[in-house]
């Protein structure tokens, strides 16, 4: 006889044991619960409250932390403020393109290190460097690399590629580029921060995709080989369907995080050059103008929009899944 689990041990003390376990579980979890409530849940509820109040940093001492008077001014202010729609559009472009690039790079990286080769461990570890390093340090290195005067990119561009002028990658809003006689504006600074975003976060996608890849049974690939599928066909019809779940999950996670991203853009451009995303606008309202109510309303709008996007994504996604089933 092997030991029986505590839950099923004996008929008589059964329910009490279960009660004991339940009580112990709640007791062990309660410290975490209290702290998460105090520092996460209550503040979120409070934000909702502040958003309907007139509250400014400078009168925090007099009116207390609850502000004074119910008002819709903050929300009116958000929707009528100049640049709100532009900030929103910038945020959406930044999130969609950044997420897609990060996942694409991560997929490529995972496929590359899938099969063993000499030095694979080192290559794999180096691919995680951008993700684990302090954002302030890597953002500074990028801003120096892209600097018009001191940066190596512009030095290389001018010396080797024959650029006429240095390109201010992080401050130029738009540059006219002529391709095949068609002239069009390219959002230089926005593309730079998107490139940084892809560079910094592809390791995250890489890790998850690699973990999934290594769990794909080797038999599948061999069966495809036996049936005469070429390597590309095996990737398209055997491997990719196996990865669709983890890629979909990554798309959701990365989109959420990129949509809320603040550090990267603040450190690289400070929101200048057409890179002012919504979170930068919130930060400026909070610290620059000290308008707490407006900042709270703005951040609620951000969270609300995010919820709408996610809702649409899942609706759309559930449908395509049904269609394919």
């Amino acid at each position, binding site marked *: 006889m092997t030991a029986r689990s505590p839950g099923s041990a004996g008929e008589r003390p059964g329910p009490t044991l279960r009660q004991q376990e339940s009580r112990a579980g709640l007791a*062990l979890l309660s410290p975490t619960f209290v702290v998460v409530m105090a520092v*996460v849940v209550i503040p979120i509820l409070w934000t909702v409250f502040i958003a309907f109040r007139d509250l400014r940093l400078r009168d925090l001492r007099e009116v207390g932390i609850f502000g004074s008077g119910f008002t819709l001014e903050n929300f009116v202010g958000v929707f009528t403020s100049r640049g709100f729609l532009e900030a929103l559009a910038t945020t959406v472009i930044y999130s969609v393109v950044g997420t897609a690039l990060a996942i694409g790079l991560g997929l490529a990286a995972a496929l590359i290190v899938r099969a063993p080769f000499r030095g694979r461990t080192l290559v794999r570890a180096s691919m995680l460097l951008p993700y684990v390093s*302090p954002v302030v340090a890597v953002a500074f290195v990028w801003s120096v690399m892209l600097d018009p005067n001191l940066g190596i990119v512009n030095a290389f561009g001018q010396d080797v590629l024959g650029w006429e002028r240095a390109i201010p990658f992080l401050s130029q809003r738009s540059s006219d580029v002529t391709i095949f006689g068609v002239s069009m504006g390219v959002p230089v600074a926005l593309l730079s921060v998107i490139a940084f975003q892809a560079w910094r976060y592809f390791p995250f996608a890489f890790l998850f995709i690699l973990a*999934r890849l290594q769990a794909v049974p080797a038999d599948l690939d061999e069966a495809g080989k036996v049936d005469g599928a070429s390597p590309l066909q095996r990737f398209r019809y055997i491997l990719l369907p196996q990865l669709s779940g983890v890629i979909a999950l990554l798309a959701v996670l990365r989109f959420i995080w990129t949509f809320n991203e603040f550090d990267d853009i603040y450190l690289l451009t400070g929101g200048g050059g057409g890179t002012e995303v919504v979170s930068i606008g919130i930060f400026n309202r909070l610290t620059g103008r000290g308008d707490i109510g407006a900042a709270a309303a703005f951040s609620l709008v951000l969270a609300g929009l995010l919820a709408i996007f996610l809702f649409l994504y899942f609706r759309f996604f559930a449908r395509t899944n049904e269609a394919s089933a």
Partner: protein
Amino acid sequence: MTGAADLGTAVEAAAHESTHSRWTRETVESTVITVLKWIGVAFFVVITVFPFLYMLLLSVRPIADLARDPGALLVPFERLTFGTYDEVLRSVEQGGQGFLSFLRNSAIIATVAVFASLLLAIPGAYAISRLDFFGRRQVNAVFLAVYLFPAILLAIPLFVFFTRIGLRGSLIGLIIVYASQTVPVTIHMLRTYFNSIPESLEESATLEGCNRFQVMRYISIPLAVPAIMSTGLFVFMIAWNEFLFALLFLVDKRESWTVSLGLSQLANSTIEVPTTVVMAGAVILTVPVIAVFFLTERLLVEGLTAGAEKG
């Protein structure tokens, strides 16, 4: 199974050999893929390693050399300088940038946050992994939802609250925020590990007369020490790297700055600080994190991606 497949491949290869030339779709694609793969390896190594190499090389270069020739990478041996590190570490009174005291602040904040986060998360993770109680499943979902919430949304009320109670500008306020923000991910990582410990071990301890807390104290936690350490180091990295809350809480008080905040302020300072000196600061900020990362890479990766392989 594998044997049969091997046989199949062999037969197929033989068939190809006899009927077609060598340039089948299989061989062409394989060759192209192999070439692309090595190009890919080179590409990824360059884009990931180069910025760090650049950081190191710039930090030991005199600023005049950089201004004269920004395209050059290698520093001639006789021009090598470590004065940049000296300047960035020295205290402000001695004409430096005071990074030594920022290092101390960061170390204190990150270390205390690690212990606080673990102290909260170990019992919590154990409970979620082992005990059946009301709301067990929901708790996990709530914690993960917290992890997805916009930091900027939380920043506003916390900023107001800590301003009001006078803790803004103190290290304690920041420690509380870091500990509570990392608890969800800490619980997630530890829970995965507790799940992998065979329950029979704990059951035999129960039969010997241990109660739940003794089982946890003498059996489960000692077994989980490696996981606890790597999770702790992960929290350390998060706290060390964090920027937004440090900026909001500490920016007015220079003596409380963390290394991350100090570097960002140095990079944007109105007083001209040589780029190479700031670069030395970036190296100082990065080295501890990379060291911690390489120490724990395997455990960290397994803990983070646990569950991902199920798709």
